[in-house]
């Protein structure tokens, strides 16, 4: 029973939640300039309790965004560069032999942080990828028969380079499905780039960021998200959208049930931006493409960089066709 706990630690009101979100977004914008929409979606994803997949060419601020997230939420942070020789033990941790006591003890790996940046996830061998993804799904790590709980809140942000595929192990669709959203920042606008050139001093802007909220508040926000009201007609709308992707002629495999659940969760979190405690069809449409684009298997032969735009385009078409409840 969690009602006594609720009484002691009441949910933040929608207005309070929105204020927190806006604080985080404003803070992030200091580090990642001119990407308000993506920043807000990234915050939505984290608040919804999902893992984030950033797909971008190098050098557009992926790492900066993740670091800024960690600082804003005051989360413990680790960055793991995924390479072809990275083994599961390198991220999960290992049993270490202590010569003095002649015993083994568990030394946690870099995964035991509240926010983990898995940089270039697709460069690691599948074994390592699946170890990470399992940890993401379970929130715990099983090693040598012992189970080690990961810290809470726990969020993974993985990055992928969508262009350079040589020497990579593309993520299987079942594993892509575990990421709540896929975002790409893209190049900043010329004005922003010019401003970066003129104003950026030696120190990284990220290092100057201060925490604007706490991991505890993030946990409360996530509880608030789970408590958001989803009207039957909106739920039905989500299902109809998913069905439309399944029935679409250009889509080989449409949205899964997990995708439907993810869409519901992300839409609930998105409602907080308007300080609402209920979900509207607009919330669903706002998170539709980031939540679904990476989960669809298109019929077109080109399964690479350009499918992202194509998938987004198809999803927008679906969103136009499926009539929203009014």
């Amino acid at each position, binding site marked *: 029973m969690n009602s006594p706990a609720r009484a002691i630690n009441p949910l933040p009101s929608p207005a309070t939640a929105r204020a927190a979100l806006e604080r985080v977004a404003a803070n992030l914008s200091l580090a990642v300039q001119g990407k308000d929409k993506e920043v807000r979606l990234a915050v939505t994803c984290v608040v919804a309790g999902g893992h984030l997949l950033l797909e971008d060419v190098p050098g557009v601020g992926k790492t900066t965004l993740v670091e800024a997230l960690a600082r804003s939420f005051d989360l413990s942070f680790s960055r793991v560069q995924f390479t072809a020789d990275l083994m599961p033990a390198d991220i999960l941790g290992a049993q270490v032999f202590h010569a003095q006591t002649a015993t083994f003890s568990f030394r946690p790996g870099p995964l035991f942080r509240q926010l983990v940046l898995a940089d270039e996830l697709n460069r690691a061998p599948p074994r390592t990828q699946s170890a990470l993804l399992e940890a993401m799904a379970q929130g715990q790590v099983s090693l040598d028969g012992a189970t080690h709980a990961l810290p809470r809140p726990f969020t993974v942000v993985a990055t992928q380079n969508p262009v350079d595929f040589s020497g990579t192990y593309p993520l299987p669709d079942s594993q892509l499905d575990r990421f709540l959203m896929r975002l790409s920042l893209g190049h900043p606008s010329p004005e922003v780039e010019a401003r970066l050139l003129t104003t950026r001093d030696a120190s990284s802007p990220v290092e100057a960021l201060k925490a604007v909220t706490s991991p505890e508040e993030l946990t409360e926000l996530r509880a608030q998200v789970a408590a958001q*009201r989803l*009207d039957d*007609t*909106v739920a039905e709308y989500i299902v109809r959208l998913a069905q439309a992707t399944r*029935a679409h002629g250009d889509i080989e495999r449409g949205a899964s049930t997990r995708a439907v659940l993810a869409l519901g969760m992300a839409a609930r979190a998105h409602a907080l931006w*308007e300080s*609402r*405690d*209920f*979900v*509207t*069809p*607009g919330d669903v*449409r706002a998170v539709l493409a980031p939540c679904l684009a990476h989960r669809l298997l298109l019929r077109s032969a080109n399964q690479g960089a350009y499918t992202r735009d194509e998938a987004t385009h198809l999803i927008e078409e679906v*969103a*136009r*066709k499926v*009539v*929203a*409840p*009014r």
Partner: protein
Amino acid sequence: MTTRPNRLRLILRDLGTAAAFSSMAVSGQVPVWALALVIVAVLVSLMGFHPFARAPRLTAILLVPLAGALYLAVAAGQMDLVVAACSFAGLVASQRLLSETSPTTDGQVLLAGLLMIAGGAALSGELLFAVCLLAFAVLASLSLGLAVVEAAVPPGEPVPVRHVLRPLSKGVLVAMAGAVAFFVLFPRLNWNVGVRRAAPGLGPATSGFSDTVRLGGSGTLKSNPRVVLRAKLTPDPGSQRLDAYWLGRTYDTFNGQEWSTIGAPSKRRRTRVTLRPGAEKQVYQRIELLPAYGARTLIAMETPSKLGNALMHTPTGDRRTQLQELGGDELRFVEEALGYSYEVYSVPPGTDTDPGKLAQKELDQLLSLPENIDPRIEELAHQVVGNETDPLAAAQKLSNWLQREYTYTLELGGDVADPLMEFLFVRKAGHCEHFATALTLMLRTQGFEARLATGFFGGERVGDEYLVRAGDAHAWTHVLVPGRGFVTVDATPPAFRANQSLELLESLISLYEAIEGMWRSSVVDYSFRDQMNFLRDMSRPPRNEPGKERTQLPPLRAWLTAAMAGAAVYWTWRYLSRRKARAPVLEATRFVDSVERQLAAAGVRAGDGETLEDVSARLTRDAHPLAPAVSPLTRRYLEARFGQRPLQPGESARLLKELKHSVEVHKQQQQTPRARAS
């Protein structure tokens, strides 16, 4: 991408058209070639082919020669104008069925169907028509409903047939109930005066009485289970089977081939006819002749003494009719009608009766024989009768002998030169007319006066009435016994006297006749007078019965009806108030409709798939002057619609008023710079 028409809608439409055409076809008057063309068209369309879709106008020219053919048939007097019009409606519908499958075509097809239904009402209006009408109404409504839904669904989307069929069916049911209420209560003119009834019920009437009885032919009549007569007897004999002879008429002259009567018809027309004096114990019968009977001859249990009080049933109501006496004890109704009812007093069998008023010539005729009668018949009769002098005993002897030596059969070899010789010496098998003729003539060869009687034999109890079926038609012999009058002797083996039809068929036909009767009395012949009676019966105080206190209060049924009406109103109110509980959602939807209308008036239009939420966000993004007005309104709508915080009474009106004000201010601001520019 072109939208594929909904298959179910087309099937329903085709079946509806078929039902509409059947409503005319059941009258049996539509020409066979038109029937064939329509059937082919419906089948082709049902299989999903629409060969005329490419050239709907060109193929419409095909209708011109068909119309010409129909016109020629009418001009030549071969076809009725109404029938021609009905057939043409069927052909137009067929052409449309095979054309393109748009909702417009559906409308045209169903309109033609409506015309065909009207034609069917003019042509027959019988029970099968009612079935077709019902089928057409249901199928056409469903098809139209589906067409509306299909039109509302955006192209490329599947039509939600499953979800729609249930509410559609409910709607059709409500519509039918409404139609019934309208029919019962709306003042009704007797429009059915002009109805031409081809034949009542299942094809033509069955057992007419003609002026002659011809031996030969086959005996299909014996297996026909249609009810031709209903009788209520007083005193009620109470038995399940009434083995009674129902006399229609008698014949006294046989020419070797057929029976006829020499008696001349009386010119007088009377409402009551007394054939012979009554006896102490008489059987009173209230007889109804049904449309299936199809003749004007009165039927009565042997031996009728008095007949009268005849009513005839016509499409416009019941009227008194008169009776006319014909030769051979036959009584006829003067006028033709669908059915008749009348009263009869009969002397029970076994009672001595007056033979009736017979002229000497008629008495002599009871001994006449065909001119070329074979002497072997007399020899045969003599062998059986011997030296018997009592007519009844002789008749019994002959009758027993015939029943013993001859077999009953309905399979007859058609016309032969001398059917009696054929029966007695060749086939030694025949039906009731052969047995009765043989007995009558053999009695006459021995000098006994006898005549042939025809009518029905039997009577089957249903409720407190007795039914006589067409298959009960029978012939027997009257022997004139001095001092006792005519006595009935039946030479036909007892097992074959009544009808020979299957029991299952019999009960099915009874059911059909009952429904047909209800349809006729409560729908086709339902008139303004019936409506008045209905209302008066509802409100009139009960009849003052002896032993009961006189009361001015309306009868129990009026109270019951009032209670039922009250309950119906209450349930409707409850249903509507429950709907109101769900109304906030609908109210919010109505609210958003109004908002969007106002915004459209101000030049802010929602794009493809854009909701008010999107529009509001767009206005805010573009810093539109209306954004500050629209934004809180949108929020309120979203709360009411998805956040379970319904709009308060009057709130939507207030918000809309505010929006209207903002829109007007916005318009003025737009116009001002333009005014300056000019």
